């Protein structure tokens, strides 16, 4: 028996049979045992029956992407066995129900250890012990599969108990004993298994196990919800759409925070209701995905010309059109950066992981307020659905910036002449930012209109007003570029502090995790050095920094989940620099460390122009 620092576990099954809960239980158990985890969730646009699966990568240190080879495949029905058996490595292990699955009929590699588990027997035992029916206990199969896995990995059963305590809270706590009973039985059965000690992927003990309660296991949808609560978002509108709806439902559930979450009749209502709300001074946001985002483009332009702060989330998924609604892609980028007819200043942010999505979300509301315009927040299905294990967020430095807001407390309402005064809401200023008053304030009456307008907000077609007004608005982007901290615009990751590395990855958004892990593997296993220029803001675009970086890079490589290599295009547009190497994938599945390592080696060795990745079910 060898030990490992890095394990890839997989479970699968028809949707609606508890695959996600199994994965959560496994992940939280590993975390309870002091490990770090990364969870990848794959599912169909379907409610019940289609195949879904979940990979959990377990490490002794923090981990941010998935790998392809599976060391331990846990199943409780046959379809997952049939679909995924081929992915198990030679000295990996396979957990299955011998009643349903015949391992000899599978595409398993020769050396794979087999762990048949008598699921039904265990259920029947529990049924007898508790007086429940076997059918009503079917969902416990998940716990059994997880327990078998953990037993194999020599993780103490107490970790399961701790995980169950975290998952089944409140009225659900009564489910814990039942599940523990099943786990107990499974551990007993596994203990007797002759191959138990042959498994080569038992986790090393965590070196510095993090303190209990010091970490989160969550995805970016939840991180965003937390950030919106923290940032004081006071209206969340939405129209349900995968995968954005998760964040909305989460917020709806937090009803004690006083944030109204309004389910709208469509995305047109969602965006315009949010903007209408924002005109009164509250912080407002809406979250959607590609199809809904298309419908919001007109409204965002109105917010742009009226300088209303609003934060719009686009959780990208596989396109075009309805596309692959539950799969991952980064292809809304150009359409977001150029969304909406005509020209208005928009800020487009693109965090690289759930942690950044928390902090960036908090900042998004600040930027919206400060630059008085639409902030587009590009996230995606990977971020929204995949789970990371991270230290708890540091809330101590989260400062609210409401921008230039007028204080009208000096106005005497009873002096009607003063109270009726107009306010030059759209005054031309040097910075482009005009102080903002709000409906409700006496002495500051103004108008808004989607038409070009004078400083009071009345319609004008006068070129002498139009020309400076458009310029003033557009100049806010330049101001933002100057004011926003460089590290919020881009980050150069050079974990090994190498100079002139062999490869210079450049990318944006959710590829961050896999690129950073790849840099590590390239260095550790192949002695290829690499760096990563992470673009964190697409508009304003950090063109100077990008250009300078690329001009000095030995071999820039763009990485993107797309067909067209949109970041390559945007960089060329903004800098004139044409990147010569691309790693692209448009299968709807995220890029794995395995794939990116191989692609990087290929580019390093063969100078390949474009490597197309295709792995994953």
């Amino acid at each position, binding site marked *: 028996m060898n030990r490992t620092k890095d394990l890839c576990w997989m479970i699968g099954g028809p949707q609606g049979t508890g695959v996600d809960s199994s994965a959560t239980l496994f992940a939280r158990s590993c975390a309870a045992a002091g490990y770090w985890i990364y969870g990848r969730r794959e599912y169909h646009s379907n409610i019940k029956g289609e195949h879904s699966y979940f990979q959990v990568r377990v490490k002794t240190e923090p981990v941010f992407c998935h790998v392809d080879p599976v060391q331990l495949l846990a199943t409780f029905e046959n379809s997952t066995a049939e679909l995924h058996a081929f992915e198990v490595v030679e000295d990996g292990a396979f957990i299955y129900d011998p009643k349903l699955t015949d391992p000899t009929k599978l595409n398993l590699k020769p050396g794979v250890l087999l762990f048949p588990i008598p699921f039904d027997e265990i259920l029947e035992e529990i049924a007898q012990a508790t007086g429940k029916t076997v059918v009503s206990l079917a969902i416990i199969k998940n716990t059994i599969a997880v327990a078998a896995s953990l037993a194999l990995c020599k993780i103490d059963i107490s970790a399961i108990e701790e995980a169950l305590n975290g998952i089944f809270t409140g009225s659900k706590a009564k489910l814990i004993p039942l599940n523990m009973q099943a786990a107990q039985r499974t551990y007993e059965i596994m203990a007797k298994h002759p191959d138990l000690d042959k498994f080569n992927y038992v986790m090393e003990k965590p070196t510095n196990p993090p303190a209990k309660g010091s970490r*989160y296991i969550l995805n970016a949808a939840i991180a965003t919800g937390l950030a919106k609560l923290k940032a004081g978002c006071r209206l969340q509108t939405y129209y349900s759409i995968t995968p954005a709806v998760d964040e909305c439902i989460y917020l709806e559930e937090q009803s004690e925070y006083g944030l109204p979450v*309004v389910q709208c009749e469509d995305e047109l209502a969602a965006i315009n209701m949010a903007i209408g709300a*924002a005109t009164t001074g509250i912080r407002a946001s809406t979250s959607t995905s590609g199809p809904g985002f298309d419908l919001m483009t007109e409204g965002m332009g109105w917010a742009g010309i009226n300088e209303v702060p609003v934060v719009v989330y686009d959780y990208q998924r596989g396109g075009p059109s309805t596309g692959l609604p539950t799969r991952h892609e980064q292809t809304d980028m150009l359409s977001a950066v150029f969304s909406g007819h005509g020209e208005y200043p928009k800020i487009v942010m693109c965090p690289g992981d759930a942690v950044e999505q928390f902090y960036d979300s908090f900042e998004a509301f600040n930027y919206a307020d400060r630059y008085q315009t639409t902030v587009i927040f590009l996230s995606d299905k990977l971020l929204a659905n995949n789970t990371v294990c991270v230290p708890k967020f540091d809330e101590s430095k989260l400062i*609210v910036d409401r921008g230039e807001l007028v204080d009208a407390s000096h106005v005497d309402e009873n002096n009607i002449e003063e109270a009726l005064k107009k306010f030059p809401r759209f005054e031309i200023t040097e910075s482009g930012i005009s102080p903002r008053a709000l409906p409700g304030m006496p002495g500051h009456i103004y108008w808004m209109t989607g038409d070009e307008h004078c400083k009071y907000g009345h319609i004008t077609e006068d070129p002498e007003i139009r020309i400076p007004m458009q310029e003033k608005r557009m100049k806010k982007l330049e101001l933002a570029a100057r004011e926003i901290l460089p590290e919020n615009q881009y980050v150069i990751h050079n974990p090994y502090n190498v100079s002139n590395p062999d490869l210079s990855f450049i990318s944006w958004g959710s590829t961050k995790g896999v690129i950073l892990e790849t840099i590590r593997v390239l260095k550790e296993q192949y002695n290829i050095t690499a760096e990563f220029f992470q673009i964190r803001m697409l508009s304003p675009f950090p063109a100077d920094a990008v250009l300078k970086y690329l001009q000095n890079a030995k071999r820039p490589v763009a990485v993107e989940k797309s067909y067209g290599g949109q970041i390559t295009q945007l960089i060329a547009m903004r800098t004139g620099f044409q990147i010569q190497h691309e790693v692209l994938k448009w299968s709807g599945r995220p890029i794995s460390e395995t794939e990116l390592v191989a692609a990087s080696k290929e580019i390093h060795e063969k100078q390949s122009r474009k490597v197309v990745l295709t792995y994953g079910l």
Partner: protein
Amino acid sequence: MASSQSLLKTPLKGSQLKSDIHSEWCPGCGDYGITNSIQQAIAALGLKPWETFLVSGVGCSGKVPHYVHVYGMHTLHGRALAFAQGAKIANPNLTVIAAGGDGDGYGIGAGHFVHAGRRNVDMTYVVFNNEVYGLTKGQASPTLAQGAQPKSLALPNPTTALNPIALALACGYTFIARSYAFDAKHLKETLMKAIQHKGVALVDVLQPCPTYNNLHTKDYFAEMVEVEGAKVPRVYYLEDDGYDGRVKDPNDIHEVNAKQAACFERAHRVEERVALGVFYQIEKPTFQDTLKRNIPMLNEFAPVELPYYDPKTGLATTDISKAAADYVI
């Protein structure tokens, strides 16, 4: 209208609510009359102009906020209701009045129109019903009759007319009235009732468009018509007919059904005359009420009032640990 809202001690005059820019409408346009009545109604109610928010769509009528000296928002074509509901939900202390064309509200805005009824946000919606798309030069609006061909149409209108009263009733509007642009008194009073109504109030205003609608002109509405042998004015008031659309007891299902049926019948009545007045009114929980039930904190603070940072340091003050609890390990 927010019950919490404080009113002016000395109400303004309507003329004080005229903004200082000139109106762009054609001579004789009904929009002048409606604007005037809006100003009159706001003044008469003693609303504070700075706590009044006039929200319009796009069209000739969409320009109305610019001519009224209250906070004004001229939004997108078809979207006035979405903006207005957002504003009211965010700051219920504002009196929110949405306004716009029939194309805006019943055409491109039909989806929002339907759902605003279901939501019953406490606000007023004034529709300028001129049977045409004025600002784009006179195409048929949804209220134009099938086969009708005002001078601006190349061919007779192929679709049937929408019945705004019946539609509003089907969608759950809790106040439904019709008035006429040049009946200043009736319109002003109807608007006052609508604004005072707690819930979403529709005021469909018949509006002559002398430029494109040569079918239903000011003269048409002023005409005498023959009803059972007698000459009577074309325009009449429902209440003069003994009609009372107001539900007294919203819990009395029989009364509600009867009043709805009466409204439905009146809405569809085919007659030479044109009825003005309140077709239906009922008091029901507003969206604000149901929100408060779901989110208790809103009973104390409106969304716009809920604090979330320390004004001195800027530090965000919300404790998110409860929301994060499930994710802590």
